[in-house]
């Protein structure tokens, strides 16, 4: 993907994040995810019904990479089954950590495929994925 296009997508998601703002609904599972080594701090909430991520939202204070990654992640995962989401999460983790991954599963999340060049930002990109994984795991248990 063209670098400028990637940047535009990230910036658009940072400035106008998708599903930002939490709602009061007991059916959602909500977790806080923060980055102890820096300053990102986000809450993610998701509604999972019949094995499908029906809806998800977030809020918090975070840098451009973390905020945009959360936004792109929510947009990608809503409507997916838990199994599909887990495949996406695993591939995204691998991409950020410079391991083998299947880009065809990641759709717009491929915009972060060069984040590894900035090691200090890897945790920013991974933070929302840690949150949604926690939600999925808690739902399973």
């Amino acid at each position, binding site marked *: 993907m063209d670098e400028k296009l*990637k*940047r535009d997508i*990230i*910036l658009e998601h*940072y400035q106008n994040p998708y599903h930002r703002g939490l709602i009061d609904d007991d059916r959602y599972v909500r977790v806080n995810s923060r980055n102890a080594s*820096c*300053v*990102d*701090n986000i809450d993610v909430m998701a509604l999972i019904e019949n094995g499908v991520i029906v809806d998800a939202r977030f809020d918090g*204070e*975070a*840098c*451009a*990479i973390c*905020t945009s990654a959360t936004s792109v992640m929510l947009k990608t995962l809503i409507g997916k089954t838990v199994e599909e989401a887990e495949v996406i999460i695993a591939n995204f983790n691998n991409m950020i950590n410079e391991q083998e991954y299947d880009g065809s599963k990641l759709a717009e999340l491929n915009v972060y495929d060069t984040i590894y060049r*900035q090691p*200090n*930002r890897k945790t*920013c990109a991974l933070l929302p994925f840690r949150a949604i994984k926690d939600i999925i795991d808690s739902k399973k248990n």
Partner: protein
Amino acid sequence: MNREDFPMLNDEIVYFDNSATSFKPQCVIEAMNEYYTKYSANAHRGDYDISLRVDQEYERVRTKVKELISAQRDEEIVFTKGTTDGLNMVVFGYMAKFLQKGDEVLISKSEHASNVLPWFVLAKKKGIVIKYIPLDADYSLNVSAIEPMITEKTKVISLAHVTNVIGDVRDVDAIGEICMKHDILFVVDAAQSIGHMKIDVQKSHIDFLAFSAHKMLGPTGVGALYGKYSLLNDMDPVIYGGGMNAFFESDYSYELKEVPWKFEAGTPNIAEVIGMGRAIDYLQEMGLDKIHEYEMHLKELAIAQLEKIPNIKVFNKKAESGIITFNIDKVFSQDAVIFLNRFKICVRSGNHCAKILKDEIGVTNTCRASFYFYNTEEEVLKLVEALKCQDKIYDNII
């Protein structure tokens, strides 16, 4: 000033993170190197020449620290791992022993974690009560609010001399007077003031004072705790082992060494203590008043320039230290400092370990530029120029 003495300084980087740690002059590195290459033996253990030299060099640093902070006796100086270690020794070695349930400790919300969390633990374990001295509109400590807060339960006031985010210099003379008048212990976290301005523990009636060497040109992993001799005598060690006991027997009886050695269990950071001593020599030769004056000059220059740039909010214009805390409107602090890194300018972002300060300043994260005497006007102007390009931040960092 003195840039040629610092191997880390070159034309490549602008280092404005001195509140986190300072660079080390070559003489400090060499002093440690000399220990490792010329007399690398253990302290307090041997009767051979190089071991005796270790004892001499090591103990000589105690005198240097004493002189740096104007303490009365060498024995009032305990070598530690740093400020955090020193403050924990005071809280868990002294306060845990003498404070009772309901006793009150006054701190502020701009304290560093190391002057907050140990007290929280004591609050949970022993039921002491922590009260926060209010801050003024400019986020500096409201000294006049202290006396009305004091009750018969108030036993300790524990404050940073200079806070690490706002950089306000507390009037330790005035606070020390209040403590003396009301028979309250005065604990001072000198992490940000040591090596930047003069400290006189006797004049300021300070009971305990802790600092680290690495923020004042010295090595990491070492620092000192000052305590009035009688207080140190009553204080228990937190760590027990070799080097700090006089004897022990199989029936559990033991006797500890005298102050300060009873607080220095295990093989000490010998090279680092010696490095700290050399750093003190260096600072004394330069003169702390001169250093402080120069830092203020840099700060005033920076503030005057930053005021001309739109969208920059400086939180601590009036603070009389070389710390400038700011944010760019609508830019997350971490994004701002990653942008500055593109210009090889090292500035810190985050909450700077002062996690309850957000209650006062209304923001969780800020950018912090902190100066030392080896910074220059040109470097300050480089920061200003970089911040003028703020509209390019996101094109640059994504």
